[in-house]
């Protein structure tokens, strides 16, 4: 468990952030200039907070009151930077081994072979960083950080220097890394797509302040946080399992906590787990059970929260077996006489699901 409470002033920018991070991947998420990188640097000891404390379990890394400030090299926090920062005068192997030597290879630690296999960099070992592509360089940088056997891995926008094809290659690797090595990762990003794909929990930052923290479902379903969690593109994230494929219509059936859902055909195996993102604006509501309608996905449920959004919109949170956000016009909302506890049918057009690569991911 990582416990962070830091304050620091840079000119007229103030960081005042407190949050806790458990196992799995926690995203520090927010727009550029939210203070994400500054907080990551404080975790690593590359920046000193004016006040506060940073604690891993019962190990104190920083405590202003007790005048504790563990130096960078003793913090045991692995870093993957935006730029790969590989050492140009070492080969890939030399880079990977650089962090290994001073640390004891405990029983739970990752081995050179595991890391090289997982990242698919076995053919690159003799090469120099300068001769690698950007994607390869970033993979080596990830491997180097992993092999230093850190207590935590901090990844500071590790994909921002890559094009979308390379991103698609590396995202599953990070996902596997998390599950295979049981790592605790702090992942810094301003990309909602990366985060819905990877994060278990979110710490939402804006202007140096924590706006919300918790499991990703809770954060994206919090109507007050919609301005920070995507705005126009905001939506819910739910987990589902593939039930069957129907090749004749090129549709797939997936099972959600609210019942079956039909989505455009995917080639993932039956039984595999999905994370599906459904944008609030792609959800329509009906007061009565709809008939003679093209929309396949219909979920009966209740309105459990609502609030006025921008430009005559009403943001709603529904419980339809799972939590689902919906956005309708304020006009419809009033004409249908909706409110807390209203029974409604939520309608989700199948064609809106998975229209972007970021909306459906295998987990």
């Amino acid at each position, binding site marked *: 468990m990582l416990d962070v409470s830091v304050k620091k002033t840079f000119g007229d920018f103030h960081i005042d952030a407190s949050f806790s991070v458990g196992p799995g991947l926690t995203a520090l998420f927010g727009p550029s200039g939210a203070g994400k990188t500054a907080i990551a640097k404080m975790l690593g000891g590359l920046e000193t907070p004016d006040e506060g404390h940073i604690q891993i379990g019962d190990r104190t890394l920083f405590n202003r009151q007790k005048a504790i400030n563990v130096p960078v*090299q003793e913090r045991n926090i692995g870093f993957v930077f935006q730029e790969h920062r590989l050492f140009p005068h*070492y080969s890939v192997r030399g880079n990977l081994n650089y962090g290994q030597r*001073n640390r004891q290879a405990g029983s739970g630690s990752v081995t050179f072979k595991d890391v090289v296999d997982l990242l698919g960099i076995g053919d690159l070992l003799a090469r120099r960083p300068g001769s690698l592509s950007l994607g390869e360089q970033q993979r080596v940088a990830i491997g180097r950080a992993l092999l230093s056997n850190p207590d935590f891995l901090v990844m500071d926008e590790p994909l921002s220097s890559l094009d979308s094809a390379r991103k698609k290659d590396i995202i599953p690797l990070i996902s596997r890394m998390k599950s295979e090595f049981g790592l605790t990762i702090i992942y810094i990003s301003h990309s909602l797509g990366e985060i819905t794909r990877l994060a278990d929990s979110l710490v939402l930052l804006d202007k140096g302040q924590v706006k919300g923290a918790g499991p990703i479902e809770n954060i994206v379903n919090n109507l007050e946080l919609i301005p920070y969690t995507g705005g126009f593109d905001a939506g819910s994230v739910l987990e589902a399992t593939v039930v069957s494929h129907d090749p004749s219509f090129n549709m797939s059936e997936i099972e959600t906590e609210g019942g079956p859902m039909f989505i455009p055909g995917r080639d993932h195996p039956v039984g595999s787990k999905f994370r599906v993102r459904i944008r609030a604006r792609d959800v329509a509501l009906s007061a009565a059970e709809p008939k003679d309608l093209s929309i396949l996905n219909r979920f009966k449920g209740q309105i459990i929260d609502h609030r006025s959004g921008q430009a005559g919109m009403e943001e709603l949170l529904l419980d339809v077996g799972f939590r689902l956000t919906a956005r309708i016009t304020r006009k419809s909302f009033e004409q249908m006489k909706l409110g807390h506890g209203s029974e409604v049918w939520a309608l989700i057009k199948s064609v809106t699901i998975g229209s972007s690569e970021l909306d459906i991911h295998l987990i």
Partner: protein
Amino acid sequence: MSEAEIGIVLLSLKVAIWCVIVSLPPALLIGWLLARREFYGKTLVNVLVHLPLVMPPVVVGYILLVTLGKRGFIGSWLFDTFGISLIFNWKGVVVATAVMAFPLIVRAIRQAIEAVDQNLETAALTLGRSPALVFLTITLPLILPGILAGATLGFARALGEFGATITFVSNIPGETQTLPLAIYSLLQVPNGEEMALRLVILSALLAFLAIALSEWLARRSIKGLESRA
């Protein structure tokens, strides 16, 4: 080549090699301080280091004479405490050439350190290496070409140093008479021109070899790094 000529060349080489050896460690320290640290009096240090580059060598030699000479405040202390005298011997020549070569070596090293991406050093720290080890494994290998360039410049400067040497330790054959001093002396006497010409050619040859050697070392050091990594 006569015995006298060989003596002159060997003395010049000895002086130039020692000049580089004694200059490098402090030049590395000063170069690093100037490139990386902000401290009170940094400008003064910078000016003092560069002074020999802009002052007439004779003036530098004179300053050395009055400070390091037998009656100079440092020189008398050195002699009384350690029995070391720099006057009229080759150690004095080393001091004179080292002072003249120092700014060139510092400049080359400083520029090399400034060119190192400090993000690499930070990354090395996050991988658990101590600052000293980071310097040895990251910074030093990356600035090695700069150090070699500085050493070559310093070596060449020491071979050619004239003004400060002749003022500080005089022109004594077999003791302080390096190549340029010998050439100067030969040109002052009748019939000396033939030997002077030979020494001039030897000078040029030594300078050429020094540069070739440093190029070779630079290439080898890069290859060495490659094979070690």
